């Protein structure tokens, strides 16, 4: 039939594989993986460890990431920061409410909390960037060269502020982020290719992902290499850390101690002890615990009853997500487990009994997310062609606006396929009103105050008109990273309204640029060299992309257009060796601008080719039909 699948821009080039990596930036530990010899492989450090503890220590003079930082946790708890993922995109009240036990000192700033360290205040974004840099360095050592791009995973249930913060961290670490993908989707990708035996059959996969700090459930349909997420749900503050805290509460109760009396040092010691006991209980039926003068035994049965409320919360998310997908548990063909906390026997038995089938667990649950991310990075950077899988994901949370009376009106519902865009019409309610305020929210509750406020923006310079006559169109767009952007136009007069935004969270572009420059200054004046290198990499990428486009779709141009673009591209190529960063950046930008029309034409050609080979006539017939 007409199932000819067009393959646009990427041809495999075995001699010239691009270096790409997938990064699982986790709450308790992080990993990096890359595709080598066609297989995703997690990369180890010099000591042979694959898991990098997500901990950064800021000493008076030095900075340590991972196991070396963790060693400092006991002596220097105030300068040793772990579980930073829990603070990404959150404000101080949020953090204090969720993790009252934290031995860290926070200072509040306008839109983001900072942690006081021996090296001055650090934002969660900066701390995450330090972890990313460490992993990128590991990958660059293993792959013997600079990375062209990375895919970073985030919990499917992360909201816009949390995703934006993750993207900012990548930028701050100097990495080119190809895509943010959802952790359970990455896990499905790692398993999907592995078990894809019968190509013609649709399969429904449920991914239960219980990590160190977050829980996700995603339901996907796999159909001929397309991974389509049907629904997703979860809890961004529920994971292995909470299980440790639950055990700690039990120990303190047994030892007749109060939490508030513990020093930061005692707290972190206690939590480590509890984590160790939890791991023991994966294989043993009881674990010895010792705390100060108290010691005792935690039986598996007691442990199970302690954590069962937490597991029940995950199961109720699973039930809701299945309802959102319009499926019953029996309709799920395969269950995939990801995240270290799925090693807990109670989790395994409860998940198995809910779905009535044994979950897959032959890939290491700690590694499966990074492996899936590596596969996607390999695809996106351009190392794969026709057989590349396609991920179609959804937005996890509903997006809405504040209406009169403090209610949220939904604009984009949760589990809508992304990318998506929706236009919403607004009008004025007073004569000659020239400004209005729009509050953007994310969440599932009816009341504004129960949802997350993402931004508040003001539309100014509206034309003075009688009430109700102005027509302001606000367009909300969610891209493939799950990130939101908003634009606004006044339509009745064509006056473009001025938009002022006050993001509730996160860094501005300028703040990131400043931080990036500051970090380069810090690295002994190699700032100019770094900037030049980045400009070159970018120019090279644009050059290669255009070269490939010209050779594949040159027929879309007339000979004059073709020659102009080819010459301009050659000119950029000749400039690659120059040392004038500014000139190179300008040349790259202007080539992108001048070739924009070609990109549009290619997109149209793509679409038409995909329109079952009918070309434009069929469409026009369709259009005529509807006018009957």
């Amino acid at each position, binding site marked *: 039939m007409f*199932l000819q699948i067009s393959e*646009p*821009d*990427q041809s495999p080039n075995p001699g010239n594989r691009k270096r790409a990596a997938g990064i699982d930036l986790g709450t308790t530990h992080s990993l990096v993986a890359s595709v080598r010899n066609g297989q995703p492989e997690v990369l180890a450090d010099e000591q042979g460890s694959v898991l990098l503890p997500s901990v950064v220590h800021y000493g008076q003079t030095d900075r340590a990431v991972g196991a070396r930082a963790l060693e400092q946790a006991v002596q220097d708890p105030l300068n040793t920061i772990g579980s930073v993922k829990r603070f990404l995109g959150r404000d101080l009240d949020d953090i204090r409410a969720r993790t009252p036990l934290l031995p860290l000192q926070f200072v509040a700033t306008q839109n983001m909390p900072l942690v006081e360290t021996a090296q001055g205040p650090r934002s969660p974004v900066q701390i995450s960037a330090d972890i990313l840099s460490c992993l990128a360095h590991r990958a660059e050592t293993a792959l013997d060269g600079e990375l062209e*791009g990375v895919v970073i995973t985030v919990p499917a249930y992360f909201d*816009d*502020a949390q995703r934006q913060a993750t993207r900012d961290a990548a930028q701050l670490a100097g990495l080119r982020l*190809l*895509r943010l993908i959802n952790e359970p989707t990455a896990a499905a990708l790692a398993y999907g290719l592995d078990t894809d035996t019968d190509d013609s059959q649709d399969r429904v996969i449920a991914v239960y992902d219980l990590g160190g700090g977050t829980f996700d459930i995603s339901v996907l349909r796999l*159909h001929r290499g*397309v991974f389509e997420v049907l629904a997703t749900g979860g*809890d961004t503050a529920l994971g292995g850390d909470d299980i440790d805290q639950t055990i700690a509460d039990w120990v303190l109760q047994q030892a007749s101690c109060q939490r508030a009396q513990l020093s930061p040092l005692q707290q972190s010691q206690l939590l480590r002890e509890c984590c160790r006991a939890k791991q023991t209980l994966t294989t043993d039926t009881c674990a010895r615990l010792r705390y100060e003068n108290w010691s005792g035994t935690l039986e598996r049965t007691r442990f199970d009853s302690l954590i069962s409320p937490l597991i029940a919360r995950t199961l*109720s998310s699973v*039930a*809701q997500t299945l309802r959102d997908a319009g499926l019953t548990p029996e309709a799920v063909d395969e269950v995939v487990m990801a995240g270290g906390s799925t090693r807990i026997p109670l989790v395994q038995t409860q998940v198995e009994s809910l779905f009535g089938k044994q979950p897959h667990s032959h890939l290491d649950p700690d590694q499966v997310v990074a492996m899936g991310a590596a596969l996607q990075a390999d695809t*996106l*950077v351009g190392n794969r062609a026709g057989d590349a899988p*396609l991920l*179609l994901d959804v937005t996890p949370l509903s997006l809405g606006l504040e209406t009169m009376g403090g209610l949220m009106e939904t604009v984009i519902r949760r589990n*809508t*396929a992304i*990318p*998506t*865009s929706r*236009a919403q019409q607004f009008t004025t309610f007073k004569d000659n009103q020239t400004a209005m305020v729009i509050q953007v929210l994310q969440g599932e509750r009816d009341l504004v105050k129960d949802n997350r406020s993402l931004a508040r*923006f003001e539309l100014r310079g509206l034309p003075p008109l009688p009430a109700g006559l102005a027509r302001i*169109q606000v*367009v909300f*767009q*969610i*891209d*493939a990273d799950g990130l*939101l952007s*908003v634009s606004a*136009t006044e*339509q009745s007069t064509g006056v*473009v*309204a*001025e*938009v002022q*935004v006050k993001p509730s969270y996160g860094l501005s572009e300028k703040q990131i640029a400043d931080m990036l420059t500051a970090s380069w200054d810090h690295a002994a004046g190699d700032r100019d060299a770094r900037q030049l290198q980045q400009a070159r990499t970018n120019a090279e990428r*644009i050059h290669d*992309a255009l070269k490939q486009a010209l050779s594949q779709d040159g027929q879309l141009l007339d000979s004059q257009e073709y020659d102009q673009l080819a010459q301009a591209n050659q000119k950029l190529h000749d400039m690659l060796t120059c040392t004038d960063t500014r000139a190179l950046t300008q040349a790259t930008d202007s080539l*992108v601008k001048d070739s924009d029309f070609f*990109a*549009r034409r290619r*997109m*149209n050609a*793509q*679409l*038409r080719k*995909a329109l*079952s080979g009918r070309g434009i006539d*069929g*469409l026009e*017939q*369709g*259009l005529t*039909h*509807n006018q009957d």
Partner: protein
Amino acid sequence: MKVSVSDQSSRPVGADLLAVDLGANYFALFDLPVDYLLDHQQLKQSHLRLQRAVHPDRFANQPDSSQLQAVRCAALVNEAFDTLSCPLKRAFYLLELAGHPVDKEQTITDVAFFEEQMSLREQLEAGRSRADAATLALVQQHAQGLMTRLTSAFVEGWRRGGDAGYAAASDSARKMHFVQRLLEEAQQPPATGSIT
């Protein structure tokens, strides 16, 4: 989140970048005849084929401007797919194409329909508060039957066309909207189950 001011005039999102105004007819986009009854298999297959062509992942290595175009194209394809997949949205869309868009704010004056709705809602509330599965199933069954009848009436009116036909179809579509909401509520778990 990023915010910007658009300099575009008031055209459908994404449609401006295409030589073909795909926003004008979603059915044509998926190679389907303009009709309420449609081949879901073909809709699905066309959708995946289009996404393979325009999804931003296919342009990840291209300049930002190309990626932005891909985002807008893919969003348009998703919107079209969503509109045609959902029976109620498809009904509203057909009336829009016919030049008779439905005013959802307009009140329904059909007293008998209203009374039936009220009675179903009361039964639903009662069933939920008592966690009475039999009553809930009965309400659902009744609502589904109603939906089937309204759908037939919609299709009949729409096919007849003309002012009278479209007005009848509009009336059915608004009623379908009501029944749909009732069905959605009936499918939610009872209030005791917490929704996170």
